[in-house]
């Protein structure tokens, strides 16, 4: 098989072009939001958030049928409620945010499952759970484009607030910043992007496109600017290779993307020159040798 057949030919199909465009858009937002999520220690919360979209989608289906826009709005609404409610709970009770999020998302996920089983219809919910990038339509693309533009705009305009609130929320507040507003705003952006990623990646795997490029870049970069740039680049390369993998090997697209990004992450975790496993091991061994060979 030539390089032409491997990399170029698949993209001659319309569905592959739409799929590629959709993951490119999602990679840009995911690459930007991911580092902020991991620096704020919200990685698991993003996961919780993605699960809590389910009841919103199910409820919207119950009311409006298989109207794509309604499904997306329903999911977005459920995600926003979870995000806002847990932020409020953690700020107004003694419950910490991870616990608040964890509790709310299981409740929401259970509600979603109950709603789906009550409907007794044969909707393809597998697609909502695991995604199908090859069935991306123009409405999905529009939503992904909107999410991408909005996220990029928020980062462009408010980058100083976002970075400062992430690094030192106390200082941010002491200089007149609105910490709670920034936090809830970021969670809303994450929810919006998760909904936009639904069709391509699915509820369960969407977060992989946000988190994996970010943790991979985190292993290589010691500057925030580099972290964001590398994260976006990794997301782009990984997701394009991922849909090629899904095309050639006939695996679901979400899984293909997460598998390529996952391989990049594992290799980085082992081989990163400053923060990887190998470097740590070698440093430890050098220390042991130094201690053993120190003359008494």
């Amino acid at each position, binding site marked *: 098989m030539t390089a032409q057949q491997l990399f170029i030919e698949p993209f001659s199909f319309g569905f592959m072009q739409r799929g590629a465009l959709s993951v490119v858009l999602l990679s840009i937002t995911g690459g930007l939001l991911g580092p902020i999520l991991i620096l704020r220690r919200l990685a698991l919360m993003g996961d919780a958030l993605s699960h809590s979209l389910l009841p919103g989608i199910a409820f919207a289906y119950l009311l409006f049928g298989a109207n794509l826009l309604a499904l997306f709005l329903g999911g977005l609404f459920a995600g926003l409620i979870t995000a806002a409610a847990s932020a409020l709970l953690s700020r107004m009770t003694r419950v910490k945010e991870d616990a608040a999020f964890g509790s709310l998302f299981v409740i929401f996920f259970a509600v979603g499952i109950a709603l789906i089983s009550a409907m007794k219809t044969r909707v393809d919910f597998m697609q909502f759970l695991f995604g199908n990038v090859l069935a991306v339509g123009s409405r999905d693309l529009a939503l992904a484009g909107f999410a991408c533009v909005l996220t990029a705009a928020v980062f462009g*305009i408010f980058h100083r607030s976002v970075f400062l609130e992430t690094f*030192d929320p106390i*200082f941010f507040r*002491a*200089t*007149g910043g609105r910490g709670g507003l920034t936090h809830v705003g970021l969670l809303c952006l994450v929810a919006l992007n998760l909904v936009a990623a639904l069709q391509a990646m699915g509820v369960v795997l969407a977060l992989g496109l946000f988190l994996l490029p970010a943790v991979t870049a985190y292993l290589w970069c010691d*500057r*925030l600017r580099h972290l964001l740039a590398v994260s976006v680049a990794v997301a782009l390369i990984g997701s394009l290779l991922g849909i090629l993998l899904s095309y050639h090997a006939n695996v679901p697209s979400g899984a293909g993307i997460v598998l390529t990004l996952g391989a990049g992450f594992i290799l980085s975790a082992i081989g990163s020159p400053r923060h990887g496993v190998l470097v740590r091991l070698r440093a430890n061994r050098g220390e042991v040798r130094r201690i053993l060979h120190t003359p008494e």
Partner: protein
Amino acid sequence: MTDATHSILRFREVTVSYGRHPALSHVSASIVCGSSTAILGPNGAGKSTFLRAILGWHPLQTGEIRIGDSHTHHLLPRLAYLPQRQAIDWDFPITVREVVEQGRYPSLRWFERFKQHDHECVDRALAELDIEALASRQIRMLSGGQQQRVFLARALAQGADIFLLDEPFAGLDLHATEELIHILRAWEAQGRTVLAAMHELPLARAHFRHALLLNTSVIACGQVDAVLTDANIDLAYRGGHCAHEDPLRSARTAHFPQ
């Protein structure tokens, strides 16, 4: 006080409560301009609350806090607050210079870029705290004393003239403590106002000009020697009401003077 001074911060009958428990009760105090003041008292005496009330984080049940003639929240740029150190994620991918640059953020609007003046402020702050050579280091690669100087430099870059330090000496070794005292004395000499919530009575006695002894209400306020008398210390740490209801806990956490 016999010397002719004017006060920069005035507390009048300030009460702050968490739920039903007052953290500060009818506190009236004047902080002298261009001088260093140690805020002292047992744990739970309201030292941190005192500093945060100045920033406007707690609604005041009674009284008011003023800088000159203004309410403090109109003058946030003049206030620099240094929280306790453990709040920072030292693995954050950020360099010393970028942390100090954050001091300029509050004075910039959303679209504004760094101007020549901002860069100069950052340069001056780095130079004053002698961390120019460390400017491009990631913040984990610094000693405890250097880390603290980075955050002091950020406060300087902010252009503040009133510095609120929350337990700045906690976790510093002898050398770093001496460095910090040296810096604070230099600031005082330049007419900056320093308020430090702290536990170290001997340090306060030796290096601070004024002191405020708190145990929910004001025990004493004024020149450090006049405040830190045996009688006042006894009143703040042993007498008065117990800040924590649990007697075991208060016995374990109280700092008794030598």
